[in-house]
């Protein structure tokens, strides 16, 4: 059992938790993830490690309420325990030798992008962070990103904060103005990563994406998380989750991510009803 040391609401749909897991905290590197299970009959699902506090043995996770499992996790309070918490899984993001990088974070994907920005910044890399949200209310990690970036750009879909538009608009402006990057690292919804890759391909900029397919074990034993990368099947949990974005078959990944859509929607409704009943 793993204790929830701190819990914080970052915005109406996003929660941050710090979990007591000293062994994972000691080893985790940016780009790696954990698999957790909230309770005995819960399902296993992956979350990126958003930060670590090695000294106090804490691992941060940041999650959006999107379904039954994240609702159940959010229902847990500080001081309570979650059943299983395993990691660090996947290969760390490659950061060696990078001097000028643009980090693109879409929505809650910003939570996964932040530790990468922080590590690059600490290595002396010039980091441009471009983060996007639907509106001002959903903004997360602004102070953290600012501290880890030479330049910080916020875009919102409705223009309620930063400038109106998509992260790709901001990146296009920079690239068209002649800015150069050793690499673009994009983390967020599949559709966002797909369009970032289409743009950077135009400009010939190497792009790494962090893929987020359906996973069960996260150790390479089932292939549920498989993707086509450069025409070859890869398992995101062990070969990734980072891949060369220009080689990823995003359309296939988007299809596969909807495999359990009907089941998930039903489970989500049931969970919400259950929690509402409890609240009464």
């Amino acid at each position, binding site marked *: 059992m793993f204790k929830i040391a701190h819990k914080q609401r970052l915005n109406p749909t996003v929660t941050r938790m710090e979990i007591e897991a000293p062994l994972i905290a000691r080893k985790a590197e940016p780009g790696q993830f954990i698999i957790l299970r909230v309770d005995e009959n819960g399902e296993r699902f992956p979350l990126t490690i958003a930060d670590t506090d090695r000294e106090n043995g804490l691992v941060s996770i940041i999650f959006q309420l999107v379904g039954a499992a994240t609702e159940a996790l959010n229902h847990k309070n500080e001081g309570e325990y979650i059943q299983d918490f*395993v990691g660090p899984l996947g290969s760390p993001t490659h950061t060696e030798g990078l001097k000028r990088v643009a980090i693109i974070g879409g929505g809650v994907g910003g939570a996964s992008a932040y530790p990468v920005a922080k590590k690059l910044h600490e290595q002396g890399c010039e980091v441009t962070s471009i983060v996007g949200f639907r509106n001002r209310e959903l903004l997360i990690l602004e102070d953290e990103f600012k501290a880890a970036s030479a330049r910080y750009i916020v875009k919102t879909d409705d223009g309620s904060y930063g400038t109106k538009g998509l992260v790709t608009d901001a990146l296009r402006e920079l690239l068209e103005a002649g800015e150069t990057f050793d690499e673009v690292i994009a983390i967020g919804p599949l559709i966002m990563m797909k369009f970032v890759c289409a743009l950077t391909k135009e400009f010939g900029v190497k792009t790494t994406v962090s893929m987020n397919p359906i996973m069960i074990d996260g*150790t390479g034993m089932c292939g*549920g998380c498989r993707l086509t990368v450069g025409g070859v*099947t890869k398992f995101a949990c062990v070969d990734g989750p980072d891949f060369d974005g220009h080689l990823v078959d995003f359309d*296939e990944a988007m*299809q596969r991510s909807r495999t359990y859509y009907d089941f998930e929607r039903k*489970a989500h409704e049931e969970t919400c009803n259950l929690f509402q009943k409890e609240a009464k």
Partner: protein
Amino acid sequence: MPNMSLVKNEMPSQAPDVRNKNFSEVALGYTEEQAIDEAQRCLNCKHKPCVSGCPVQIDIPAFIERIIAHDFEGAYQSISKSSSLPAVCGRVCPQESQCECKCVRGVKGEPVAIGRLERFVADWHNANATEAPVKPVPNGHKVAIVGSGPAGLTCAGDLAKKGYEVTVFEALHLAGGVLVYGIPEFRLPKAIVQKEIDTLKSIGVKLETNMVIGRVLSIDELFESGFEAVFIGSGAGLPRFMNIPGENLKGVFSANEFLTRTNLMRAYRNDSATPIVKAKKVAVVGGGNVAMDAARCAKRLGAEEVSIVYRRSEAELPARHEEVEHAKEEGILFKVLVNPCEITGDTNGWVNGMVCREMTLGEPDASGRRRPVEKEGSEFKMDVDCVIMSIGTSPNPLIKSTTKGLDTQKWGGIIVQEETGLTSREGVYAGGDAVTGAATVILAMGAGKTAAQAIDEQLSKK
């Protein structure tokens, strides 16, 4: 006077068209009377050929003698000198190619039902034993076991009985390896696996779940933290795919994923949060025991039509004969001499068919089996909405890639000295599927036992 019946006592079991709709155990086990009657078929041979057929060398006539004497606990104690998992082995061992194939009674008639008797004894003990097992006196040595499948648990059990302080590291949230994620409930109830693991814990084996060795701790770090030897029993969990078009469509699974969702995550139960695709027409590609398990699970999950698709003929099916028979009784269809070449999908990315070719058998290949050859112009389409790939697994590369100086075969198997299980690294032993590639539960147990003995010899010199 021995019981001279030429046939084994039948084991009561659920009727086929009842059991193919539930996940409860198919075979129900002997009653005390049936067990004693079957035990009396044993001739108590002096040269005990059956023992040489058992990979962990249980003294079979000795435990059978205790059954005849109504001393079921004595029979259990006799078995447990050699085996740590009798309730498991009595159920899943291929006895027809091990102990029972050496039985003298099998020369004329059927051999003694050694597996069923072992199972009876273990179940009797689990239901009736009152005394807690005696915890051995600690000898002060610490051993780490990587993986809690049959190899790791056997190695752990043997070492714990000798007084070693043993810690088993398991990557998943439940211990048991293939016993919990692979073999279905209806062949091996999970409560039985748990009971065997609890017995190991009660003799001092420590179990740490959620520990992926290679990621959270390396083999070298295990030594740094005070372990004097390490046994790697990490299995062969990496599934193979065919690399044919359409394999990444929705509705195509590795058998490992399908079975993990069903067995470990209990997706067949309404109270499980883990989803599974509800398919109507399922094709399971492959002919091994895993394919039979996947097919029988698919049927129980409500599929109308489940087919085994195998590229050789029925005579070459690698699955146990008994499993094939059970599958047939439950209504699984067998499409042999058929090989898929493409999986087709609809506009939403769901499987809607599988294109196959008929095969004929050519000359024997290196493995001695006749090689399947495609019949030209024989393409036909199967109407399916789910495909389960069960064409084998290979060792997970994680340990290899994170352990310096650990030699492996090209295909990933860890290289060991056969008689000890010692790897190319001092103090590091390995066994089971991590060494051999996908094999059987009992061979993994035998390897765990061999390594435990070698570890004991090495450490007791210190």
